[in-house]
């Protein structure tokens, strides 16, 4: 598995506790439209991603992330910037 694949597996596992609608998650899944997350849920989820990868995702950065794919890429980028 590449680093990206490993991150993808971890992120999909982090989504599950917040996936109250039981949506089948793929990289194309959108957080707002498909998972129907509100701002509070987004904040809690972002915090769990930060804890898992030891990175900081500002609200400005999070606002640009719409899909699971974009999040996986953003996490990879933030890890490399560290």
């Amino acid at each position, binding site marked *: 598995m590449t680093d990206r694949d490993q991150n993808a597996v971890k992120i999909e596992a982090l989504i599950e506790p917040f996936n109250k609608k039981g949506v089948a998650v793929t990289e194309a899944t959108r957080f707002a439209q498909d998972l129907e997350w*509100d*701002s*509070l849920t987004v*904040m*809690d989820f972002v*915090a769990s991603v*930060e*804890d898992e990868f*030891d*990175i*900081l995702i*500002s*609200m*400005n*950065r999070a606002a640009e992330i719409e899909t699971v794919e974009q999040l996986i890429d953003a996490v990879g980028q933030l890890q490399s910037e560290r």
Partner: protein
Amino acid sequence: MNDLFSKFDPVIALRESLLESGMTDPFNLVMEKVESPTVAICNGKRTILLGTYNYMGMTFDPDVIAAGKKALDEFGSGTTGSRVLNGTYSGHRECEEALKDFYAMDHAMVFSTGYQANLGIISTLAGKDDYIVLDIDSHASIYDGCALGKAQIVPFRHNDIEAMEKRLKRIPEGDGKLVVLEGVYSMLGDVAPLKEMVRVAKDNGAMVLVDEAHSMGFIGENGRGVAEAQGVIDDVDFIIGTFSKSVGTVGGFCVSNHPKFEILRLVCRPYVFTASLPPSVVATAATSIRKLMYSADKRAHLWENSKRLHAGLKQLGFKLGTDEPQSAIIAVLMPDLEAGAAMWEALLNEGLYVNLARPPATPANMTLLRCSLCALHTEEQVGEILGMFAAAGRATGCIS
């Protein structure tokens, strides 16, 4: 043509469905006459006011009124200019002196509204390479200040010290950090754990700004707010406040001990590019602030009112925003907007005005009936208020 108003269609639909049911519009109330800080005439009916921010009841204080009239006579109706050009009269300076004395701080800067104080100070302090760590339930003016300055926003769960610390520690070394907190959060009326949060902020090299809009005048020994009450006011870099609550007029301010503070007058755009407050407003504000320094009896009575209303509403079976009264705001939790609007209208018919608060202003999509007490509510009025809540609650089925 693409109608730029289309994005408001969901709000328009929600509003129409509420009004179609024959309900009085909760966001369109007109007060025909205001008799005192606690009583107005609404729809021809005597109404007790329990939804204003007139915490200390200063709006009809004879000294305050006299100061305003005198300034109106001597300095005219307005300044027609910016604070940095022709808009600073002796009254503006006296108002800033009163604030410095009230807070025992070195610097004070008066803005035209409280909203502009947050907008101006936050956007000027933190730019696009700086980080602002804030409570997710922060007031709109705080978020707008972050957006205006293009700062990196890092929110944490409401009043969660550990979450705040964790996110603060992840900010890259050497980057600018501002922690923004509120003393009292106005929706539920709960107080922030400033003692711990200010310590955590300082331990991590951040500057701290505390918005004390809803605590000025009655929380803390000298009414300086929650930071004073919790003993950390000396570690707070900036306090933001407003004249439109306890002070009883309109305007906003920032006080600070930072040695370079005065430069903000030249670089803070919401301070520079707007007209200054009218002379009558700064005169009423200065008089009111000086009187608030010596209002220990009123502070004590306001706390009595808050405790009694909280206990009474709890006993009636209402769900409240806090287990104990923490401020002059008591939030009654409603199951949904329809029930909230019905209860609001029933209370108005009883002769009581409270604030109906709904998303997106409220946390976690709650609908609230927000009660804010005044130091001039009498014991009898608090009794009347509880009677009205009992009657309206039973009529609408909110309580049994």
